[in-house]
C-alpha cells in the first residue's frame, strides 16, 4: 500500500505547491475586488525570471527574479485596470498573451534555440530533521523543498493577516464595497495596487517554483494552464486562505492520482485520466453545494 500511497501523497504536495502560491496570490487580488485572469502570463514570466536570475546568482536570487518578473507583469495589469480603467478581463487576456510571447522571445534571445541546459541551479527537497522520520506524514509533508515549508508558514500568516490586521480588513472591505471603504477613509486604489502586485509576486513565485523547485529548466508555454486552474482553485476555496490552500491540495491530489493511475497501467483511454482533475472538481463543487460568496465588487470587472 505504501508503494502507492506515499508516492501519491508526495506528488500531491509537490504538485499543489506552485498552484497554492498562484492561488493564494489571486485570493488576495480577488478579495480586493479585481479578478486577474492574466495570472497565466504572470506565472510564465515567473518561470523565465526564475531561470535567468538563478543562472546569474543561484536559486535564492532565482526566486527573487521570478517574483520580480511576476511583479512587473502585475504592475502592467494594475496600470491598465486601476489607472486607465480598462476592462479587467480583456486586460487579463492580453497579459496572458504578452507573458507567453515575451517569455518565448526573451528565452530564445538569451539562450538561443539550443535552450537552457538542465543544469540550472535548483533546490532539492530537504528532509526536516525529526519530523521527516514520522511514519507516512514524514516522507510526505516533511521531505519537500523549502518552498513547501514556506507555504506552511505563509498560509496561517496570510489568514491571520486578512482576519486580524486593519490592512487585511481594509482589503476585504474594498472587495465588498469600494464606496464604503472609501467612506471609511481607506485609500482604495493604493490597497488594490498592493493586492494586485502581491498576486503578481505570488504568481511569479509559482513560476519560479516550477522551474527551480521542479523542472530545472524552462520550456515555452510550460505554465500549461496553471493560471486558469489557480483561478478555479480560488473559487473552490471560496476566496478564503485556508480553503484555497485545501483546494490547491485537492487539485494537486487529482493530478497526482492521474499520474499514478497512468503509471499503474489501467487500460483506459488516457484522456479519461487527463480529465479526472476537472471532473473531480465539478463533483466537489456540487457536493459542497450552496453558492460561494464571491467578493461583491468582483461582479463589476472594472478596476
Amino acid at each position, binding site marked *: 500500500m505504501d*508503494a502507492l500511497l506515499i*508516492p501519491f501523497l508526495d*506528488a500531491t504536495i*509537490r*504538485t499543489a505547491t*506552485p498552484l497554492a502560491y498562484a492561488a493564494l496570490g489571486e485570493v488576495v487580488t480577488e478579495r480586493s475586488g479585481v479578478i486577474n485572469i492574466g495570472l497565466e502570463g504572470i506565472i510564465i514570466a515567473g518561470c523565465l525570471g526564475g531561470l535567468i536570475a538563478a543562472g546569474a546568482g543561484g536559486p535564492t536570487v532565482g526566486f527573487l527574479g521570478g517574483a520580480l518578473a511576476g511583479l512587473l507583469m502585475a504592475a502592467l495589469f494594475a496600470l491598465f485596470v486601476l489607472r486607465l480603467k480598462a476592462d479587467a478581463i480583456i486586460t487579463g487576456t492580453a497579459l496572458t498573451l504578452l507573458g507567453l510571447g515575451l517569455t*518565448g522571445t526573451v*528565452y*530564445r534571445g538569451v*539562450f538561443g*534555440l*539550443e*535552450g537552457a*541546459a*538542465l543544469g540550472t541551479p535548483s533546490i*532539492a527537497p530537504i528532509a526536516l530533521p525529526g519530523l521527516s522520520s514520522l511514519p507516512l506524514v514524514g516522507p510526505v509533508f516533511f521531505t519537500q523543498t523549502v518552498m513547501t515549508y514556506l507555504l506552511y508558514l505563509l498560509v496561517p500568516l496570510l489568514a491571520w493577516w486578512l482576519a486580524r490586521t486593519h490592512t487585511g480588513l481594509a482589503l476585504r472591505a474594498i472587495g465588498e464595497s469600494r464606496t464604503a471603504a472609501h467612506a471609511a477613509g481607506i485609500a482604495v486604489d493604493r490597497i488594490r495596487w498592493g493586492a494586485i502586485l502581491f498576486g503578481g509576486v505570488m504568481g511569479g513565485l509559482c513560476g519560479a517554483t*516550477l522551474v527551480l523547485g*521542479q*523542472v*530545472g*529548466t524552462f*520550456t*515555452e*508555454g*510550460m505554465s*500549461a494552464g496553471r493560471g486558469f486552474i489557480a483561478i478555479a482553485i480560488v473559487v473552490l476555496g471560496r476566496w478564503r486562505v485556508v480553503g484555497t490552500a485545501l483546494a490547491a491540495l485537492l487539485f494537486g491530489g487529482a*493530478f*497526482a492520482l492521474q*499520474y*499514478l493511475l*497512468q*503509471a*499503474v*497501467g489501467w487500460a483506459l483511454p*488516457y*484522456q479519461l485520466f*487527463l480529465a479526472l482533475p476537472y471532473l473531480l472538481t465539478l463533483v466537489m463543487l456540487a457536493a459542497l453545494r450552496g453558492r460561494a460568496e464571491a467578493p461583491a465588487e468582483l461582479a463589476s470587472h472594472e478596476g
Partner: protein
Amino acid sequence: SGEKRPNADASAFRVALLTPGPISDQAWNATAYQGLERMRDSLGASISHIQTKTPAEFEENFRQYGAKGFDLVIGHGFEFQDAARRVGPQFPQTLFATTGGEGAGPNVVALSFAFDEPSYLAGMAAAAMTRTGVIGVIGGTELPPVKLGFEAFLAGARLVRPDIRLLTAYIGNWDDASAGKEQTLAQLSQKADVIYQNADAAGLGVFQAVRQAKGAWVIGSNADQNGLAPEVTLGSVLVDVPHAFLLLARQRQANTVQGPTLRFATASEVVRWVPNPTAPPLPEQVRAKMDSVRAEFAAGARPVLTPR
C-alpha cells in the same frame, strides 16, 4: 540574420517550414528548424518559418506560400497532410511535403521516417539495462509516430527479455515539463527504471526526473538528446530531419522527387539509434544481437511492426 529576410532574391530557391510547436523544444520542432537552416546554409535557400496551431491555418499558409511561388513547403507532421492534399493541385510549381502522413500526386509528398526501427533497438537496449524488468514510455499526445515508436520499443524489449513489463503514459500536451517530470516520478515509483520519452519540450521534465532519481535510465527521441543529461541517458532515437530535408531539397532542385512517399529508414542513416558514448556498455550478446538486427533493418529484411 538570414531568417529575417526571406524572399530577398526572387530567383533563389525558396523553402518554407510549418511547425506545429515552438522551435525551442530541443526535439521535434527544433530539428525541423535546424533542417530549414541547413537548407539555407548548404543550398543558399531563402527560408521562411511559421508556427501554426490549427488545421484552418495549415491550409491558409500552404496557399499563401504556394501563391508566392515557393519551391518547397514543408509541413512538419502528419497533421499537415490533408491541407497539403487540398492545396497541392492548385500550385503545381510548388512541392508540398509533410513529415508523416501520406503523399498524393506529383507535388504532394510525404516523408516517412522509420521511427520504429531505432525504437526497436532502443527497446533492446532498455531490456538489457533494466534491473526491475519494468520499463516506461512517456508521450506528449498519442500521435502515430509516437505510438509506433512505443510499440516497436516494447517489441524490441521483448526480444531481449520476454517477461518485460511496459508502463505507458501521455502528458496530454508537449509543453508541460512539470507534468512530464511528475509522470516520470510516478513511473519510477512503480519500479520502472528505463524510460523512453517522446514529449518534445515536456520531455525535458522526464530527463530531469531521471537525473535526480538514482539508478534509472532515460532514452531520448527525435533529436540527439544524449547531451541533455549524459550521466543517465542510454541513447537517443534520432531522426536526422536536417539530413532528410537536405536530401529532399536536392531532389526538388534536380526535379527528381519520387513521390508520393519518400521513406527514410535505417538504410538512409536518417533514422538511427545513437547510443550515449558515456553510458556503460551493454552486455556483449545484446550488443551483437542489436548489430544483427540493425543490419537486417538496413537491408530492408526485417519489418518491425506495420510496414509504415
